[in-house]
Structures are given as C-alpha cells and as structure tokens.
C-alpha cells in the first residue's frame, strides 16, 4: 500500500483572510487530495462507502489485468495451508480471466471472475471535516486491518503538513475522550490514545 497526499490548501491561506474560525468550520473549506495505490478491492469497497468524498478509481473495464498473481493483496492471516488454497484460487481466477478475454468476452464482463484481493489504485479527495469522520471510524481497532492501515497512512500525511489542525484527529475514542462503540468497545483506550498522540509526530 502506498499513500501520498498530492495537494491541499494550507489552512493559513484561509485564516490570513477569514480571521478567527473554529477548526471544524475551517476544515469544511479545506480539501485533501490523496493518491492511494496497491490496496485491494476489499479495501476500496469500504473506502467508497464514505460518500462525502470524491473518487477516481482504476477501471476494470478499460484496464486489462495482466498477471493477477503479481497484483493481489494477501492478508497476513492467510498462511501455510491457507496460503496454498489462496494461491490456487488466484491462479485459477487468473486463468479463467485470460481464457475469457481470449474467447472475445469484453473486459467489462471477464472481470466478473476477478477476486476481491485484486489490487487497485485510486485518487481520493475529502474535505477536512469528512476526513475527521473517516479517521474516527476507520482508525478504530474495530475497523478491518487494511482500511485501518490506509486511514493511519492518510492521517500521517495530513499531520505532516498540518500538525496542529489534525492533532485531535484519530479514532473516535481519541477525538471524544470516550469510546462510542458501547458494548463492542475494544477496552484498549489508553493504548489507542498513546498511539494516536504520537502517530505522524515521529511516533
């Protein structure tokens, strides 16, 4: 996974002219544009559920998958015998896809056999306020590991350029001071607080 903040408006440009403004108000006028590369379709499906954002994603209608096994994301939990099953399925899917293309099936239909593990690239733009909500949900230990890694990388990137503005960003327990997950709480708030007070600040 590779995440890069491509462009943004520095907050000082607005504050110099607009004057005093709450961070939340300010964040709603600022947008952050990211390149996100090498995530699985599992991850991108979760990402695009955040509707207050803009996405431009690699198209499987226009882009043919060349060697599927070189472009899949494999979870760390899949190892040993599990890895053999996983790799066999990827090989089979790859063969089926290539065969369908050779038979003249259009890419937009041949892609139906591609697995969720297939890598994808996309450009993502979110305003600062939507980013806070995204971090609140997806940096949480209850989030799935790949989108949590993505959210952490995005948080590192925005903290690099706006360290003060995003100091309170992170999972909701870190933002609010309490866990809003109720009976599903991980119970590890102190550990989480420690992590997000230093993430991207050399920690």
């Amino acid at each position: 996974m590779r995440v890069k903040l491509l462009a943004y408006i520095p907050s000082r440009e607005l504050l110099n002219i607009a004057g005093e403004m709450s961070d939340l108000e300010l964040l709603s006028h600022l947008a952050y544009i990211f390149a996100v590369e090498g995530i699985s379709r599992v991850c991108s499906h979760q990402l695009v559920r955040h509707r207050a954002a803009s996405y431009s994603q690699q198209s499987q209608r226009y882009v043919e998958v060349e060697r599927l096994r070189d472009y899949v994301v494999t979870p760390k939990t899949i190892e040993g015998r599990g890895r053999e099953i996983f790799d066999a399925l990827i090989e089979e899917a790859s063969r089926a896809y290539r065969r369908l293309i050779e038979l003249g099936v259009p890419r937009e239909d041949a892609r139906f056999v591609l697995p969720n593990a297939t890598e994808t690239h996309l450009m993502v733009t979110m305003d600062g306020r939507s980013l806070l909500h995204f971090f609140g949900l997806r940096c949480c230990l209850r989030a799935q590991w790949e989108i949590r890694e993505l959210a952490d990388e995005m948080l590192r990137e925005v903290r690099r350029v706006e360290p003060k503005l995003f100091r309170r960003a992170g999972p909701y327990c870190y933002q609010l001071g309490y866990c809003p997950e109720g009976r599903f709480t991980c119970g590890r708030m102190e550990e989480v607080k420690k992590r997000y007070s230093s993430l991207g600040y050399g920690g």
Partner: protein
Amino acid sequence: MRLRLIASTPDIEPLIAAAILTTTGSKPSEAYEALRRQPRRAERIVERLEFHHGSVFEHNRLCWLLEAEDEAILELLLRSRFFQLSRLGDERWLMSANLRTVIEYIRQHRDPIAEALLESIGEVAPTVYKRLRGETSK
C-alpha cells in the same frame, strides 16, 4: 455582490488529468508528478474532456470571499446545495466548492454570480475557463 477567489488547490488541471489517467491504468502519484512537469499535456487532456463526466473535476477546492446580502446567499444555496458557506460578518462570507460545482452552476445559470465565478477561475483552471467562456458567449 462581490466575489474574490482567495485560495485554491494548486495544480488543478494536472490533478484533473491525473484523475482521468488513473481510471485508465496509471498510478495517480506518478501521473500527477508527470503532468505537473508537462502542463501542455495536462491541458490537452482537459481540453478533450466532456463536462458531464463530472467526477474528475472534484479533486480540488476553491475558496472565495463573498460579499452579498442574505437573500442572495439563500438564492445561491437553493440553486446548488454543494457550496459551503461560513458567515464571517455582516454580508461577508467564506464560500468554497469544487470545480464541478462551479462548472455546473455556470452552465445552468446566467446571473452575476455565475459570471463572477467564471472570471475567478481564469488563472487557476485556464483550460476549463476558456471552454466555459466559449460556451457562455454563444
């Protein structure tokens, strides 16, 4: 009504072009860096783009200082719900939106705000400006 662009995402047109190339297979970070170095190439891509394929115009933000009466602001919000506004003082507003919102407003309305919005993007999105200017002068 007075409107002045006070901030915008840098390299708006290379970002639009990079978004298009991302959908057709390029890595967005590499496409963006290449297009920043080749502004003429970015311009050619943006020139060919259909305005109704709007989502690639969303990878940016434009911020304006707007001086207008409350009634004009209400009218604007009734016409497009995608403008973000913060009241700064009496008849002074901070307004922001992405280029898609601006393009759609300009193409759908012929009013002083549409004209002021169009004028404001001339420097930050010159290819889009030229195309819209061509359309609105017909």
